[in-house]
């Protein structure tokens, strides 16, 4: 499933292993991917259960017909169902920004939204920005400016940074810091993140 070359099920690499673990663990822990079916306990709890529901998300320019449990967040859908793992789960409560993606061109926290709410909408993830051999200018600037350390928050930072350049902003470092405040970096690469964003802004490349 997915464009990711690592998604080939015959290739027993680490990513594929983690994904299969994720899909089996999802039924008990992650609460929501295409393989989840409500348990008997759920069925007997008295609340009406809808099994999986069909939706189509347009992700990185490609229509993805999907079946999801209604509880599936957009984040879990992107990672566990579509197998695009560049988008990260940090806090899962809208406090860290690691899960930032674009919906219809605007940045959002994908952890606080249900996948079902986005049927028919255009989703862009970090995989949709550039490719290893052809980095997006913001990705290249993050590399050039050393704007990360562990890298876990980086895809969210870059998705925010790309969106920021199209938002109302006076272009000052202070304004950039304010508008990036929803993306936490526990390594503390903030100064270089601001440098990377300003480098792209000044180059006018996007």
């Amino acid at each position: 499933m997915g464009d990711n070359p690592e998604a080939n099920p015959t290739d027993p690499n680490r990513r594929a292993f983690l994904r299969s673990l994720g899909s089996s663990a999802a039924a008990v822990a992650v609460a929501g991917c295409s393989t989840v079916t409500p348990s008997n306990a759920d069925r007997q709890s008295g609340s009406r259960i809808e099994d999986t529901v069909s939706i189509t998300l347009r992700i990185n320019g490609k229509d993805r017909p999907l079946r999801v449990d209604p509880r599936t967040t957009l984040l879990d859908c992107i990672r566990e169902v579509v197998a695009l793992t560049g988008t990260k789960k940090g806090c899962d409560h809208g406090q860290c920004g690691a899960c930032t993606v674009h919906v219809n061109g605007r940045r959002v926290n994908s952890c606080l939204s249900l996948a079902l709410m986005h049927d028919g909408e255009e989703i862009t993830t970090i995989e949709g920005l550039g490719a290893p051999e052809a980095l997006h200018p913001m990705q290249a600037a993050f590399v050039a400016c050393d704007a990360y350390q562990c890298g876990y928050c980086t895809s969210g930072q870059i998705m925010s940074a790309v969106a920021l350049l199209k938002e109302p902003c006076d272009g000052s470092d202070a304004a950039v810091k304010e508008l990036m405040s929803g993306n936490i970096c526990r390594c503390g690469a903030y100064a270089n993140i601001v440098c990377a964003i300003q480098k792209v802004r000044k180059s006018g490349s996007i």
Partner: protein
Amino acid sequence: MKTFEFIRAADLKGAIEGAARAKTAQQGADVRFVAGGTTLIDLMKLNVETPAHVIDINRLPLDKVETTPDGGLRIGATVRNSDLAHHPIVKQDYAVLSEALLSGASTQLRNMATTAGNLLQRTRCMYFRETAMPCNKRKPGSGCPAIAGSNRMLAILGASEHCIATNPSDMCVAMAALEATIHVQGPKGSRAIPIAGFHLLPGDTPQRETVLEPGDLITHVTLPAPISGSRQVYLKLRDRASYEFALASAAVVIKIAGGNVINARIALGGVGTKPWRSPAAEAVLLSQPATPANFRKAAEAALRDAKAQSENGFKIELAKRCLAHALQMAAKG
């Protein structure tokens, strides 16, 4: 997260009928509307909210900002916080609202969060958010451990012996100062609720936070025509420079003529169990010279009834200085 039925509302009538079967529209409602999801999905993950039915209202035609015939503004329920904050009329005529919105959360959250959702934003009290703990708001009668516990962020105005949870909204504070009206459609028709009467004090029913009943759907908010020549400021004080809830905030709409205050509307945030309009502070200022001494007197009046908990006594002086400073900023233009 508990399982639920997801329903995409096709029209207002369907949404209202779907929600009218709920036993309550307050804490623990078995039917919930979802728009931005930034509060609801968060609380559903924590099992603080466990609706059996979730009605998506995002495709209803409630996303417009329009001027009204009387020179005011009509803001649709699902207008996103970022769109409202950057709307040219809001920036020009209701700057306090734009500033309040932009001081809240992050751009990502503001791109999701809606006008009606923010009116219903839930407290950040950690006992409310943690189901292993008692909480009178979440589980009536179970007790309020915040009173003898971790209460640094909690309310100094409007609290009761049952609940001291702070209302966390910035938008509502500005709307209180702007005298917004909340328009609701429900099973029995539509009604208009002044924001001052929309949120409830906790009293002995902290689980009831607003006057909304099952099936009530906020359709829009109206703002009266701007007071011409008024100056507006939203000042928010917090533990870090951005992306943090208020320890104290002040929304000020003030008109000064000939050195005297001729109109003043004041509301405080981060300190009350509801968005805290202060008629007492307004009365102190009215017809008096716009001086720092009078601003301080107004701040004293606004906090006269404040009651400190074990960890948040500092907020009383902080809120006074916040309001006095906001008035000073407004007076200087």
